[in-house]
């Protein structure tokens, strides 16, 4: 189960890695390095990462990258991915055009 993250934890310095330029979130074109840097900038939850970088907020809505992002953030925080609360699920679950959202049949 997820736990509240201790913000005073020392996660060490950001150490560049050779594959930091590798794309992780394809829809929003966010790299592994950007995600790792975001953790060192203080974004320690998936919700914060999403708001900071927009990972998982593109066309596929995190279908591919949410698990990958979780793994990278967890490794950076030296915790298990299972301890990270996943992103909030909210409607619309699939990308939906505004004109469709506005065309409700009651």
């Amino acid at each position, binding site marked *: 189960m997820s736990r509240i993250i201790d913000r005073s934890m020392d996660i060490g310095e950001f150490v560049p890695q050779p594959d930091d330029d590798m794309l*992780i979130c*394809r829809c929003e074109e966010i790299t592994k390095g950007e995600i790792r840097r975001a953790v060192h900038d203080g974004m320690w939850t998936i919700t914060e990462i999403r708001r900071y970088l927009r990972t998982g907020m593109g066309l596929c809505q995190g279908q591919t990258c949410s698990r990958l992002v979780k793994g990278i953030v967890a490794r950076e925080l030296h915790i298990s991915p*299972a301890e990270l609360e996943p992103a909030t699920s909210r*409607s619309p*679950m*699939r990308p*939906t055009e505004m004109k*469709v959202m506005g065309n409700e049949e009651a």
Partner: protein
Amino acid sequence: MERYEVIIVGAGPSGLSAAIEAAKRGLKVIVFDENDKPGGQLFKQIHKFFGSKEHHAKIRGFRIGEQLLEEAAEAGVEVQLGATVIGLYSDKEVNVRIGDSIRHYKGDTVIVATGAAENMVTFPGWTLPGVIGAGAAQTMMNIHGIRPGKKVLMLGSGNVGLVVSFQLLQAGCEVVALVDAAPRIGGYGVHAAKVARCGVPFYLSHTITKAHGEDHVTGVTISEVDSHFTPIEGTEKTFEVDTICMAVGLSPMSQLLKMAGCEMEDNPKRGGQVPIIDDFGETSVSGIFAAGDVSGIEEASSAMIEGRMAGVCVSEYLGYLSEEEKEAELKKLEGDLDSLRQGMFAPKNRGKLIEKTDEGIDVSMNLLQKGYVSDDEIERFPGVVHRKGVHPVIECTQNIPCNPCQDACPKKCISTGDNITFLPFIKDDCECSNCGMCVASCSGQAIFLVDEDCGDGTATITLPYEFLPLPQVGDTGYGLSRSGEKLCEAEVVLVRSLKAFDHTNLLTMRVPKEYAMKARFFTKD
């Protein structure tokens, strides 16, 4: 707002099964599915399923899908296709996108059967066109009739990786290697063996370190990994490929349940974020159920049973069944589910190294590491016998819940004993009529009919053959070993394609008799 007694999200094996159970008891049911066709993944499954008669064993997946659709139509299930559920709330309000509008529905109960999505692993070049999921490869081949590529490397040796590798071969692709970071093959040995005897090499404890190419995949480099899964320098091997296929597991698509406020957990044994459910699929929100892969990754046969359980539960929840009737139905279904979850690959054994079969026989380590049982290991298994004349040789060496072979033999020569997971053996008073039913019935393509000594220095081997073009009688070529190596010259002496074999052709080849227990496949060139 339209009201239904049961709203089901997902028209795959579990969703349809749930719908059938509810609709046949008179409940007003609707199933939403975002796809254009119902059936979920079943229609991509062209291989024969494992299990017992009750679990549709030896029936090809897409046929099970067809049967399920017929049953649903008979029960009066309403299936709304092209309908994407975009919202689910705790009061069981369901928002659905249909065409260009959003419609609101209210369910007295809701069953979420949304299935799972494929996982990916990353390496430099993983976003290049040509890197695809195994599910995508199946969709291209088996739904649209498109070959995904010419030369393919498969990452992942679970059943999905093994089954899709075989299907790629059937589609005419060259599978250059099957790679897995784990030290042992994850899927059924029989699935691995049929890929291995086509000559596909297995690289266990290896991972992809780079995909090459500028605007599409032109090659791939793999490296051996140490016990921490870190690539070892100097172990790189490069293959020229145009496609990299990934079969590295599935994640439940459970977001709707989380949105509805169901209690969730991160459970690696179930594949990721899953709802906390009781034994029959009810979540922490009364009246919302989960069935199939969304509540834990398994396979289609168990998904169908879980769906039926949820369908029975909602029927009782809404007063269409008494509690006693529900208990009786669930007990039966629980028994079925339990029998599927037996054997070496049972959920409780996931990740464990099992060294001995239930019979106390040493498991073939070669099978776990290279994909085939070696010549010196094969003799210790009960289905491998030597008799005069034609007789079955059953190269089934792991305890899996499957037994169509024992029903297939009209002479009752084959038995799996008291337990569905026991290894099949050939009875002593066996009078094989060479009918071939056992060969065609084995979903693992692990049964051969062998005449070890025809009296003229040759032997004949009848093997299951599911490739096109089908060789003709008189064709000459080579007998291949279990690892796909050319062993000897071989001549096709008989090709049988009966309706009862359900597209598993039986090819009989003549080889020098010293290869009777070694040659297990045929190639013309």
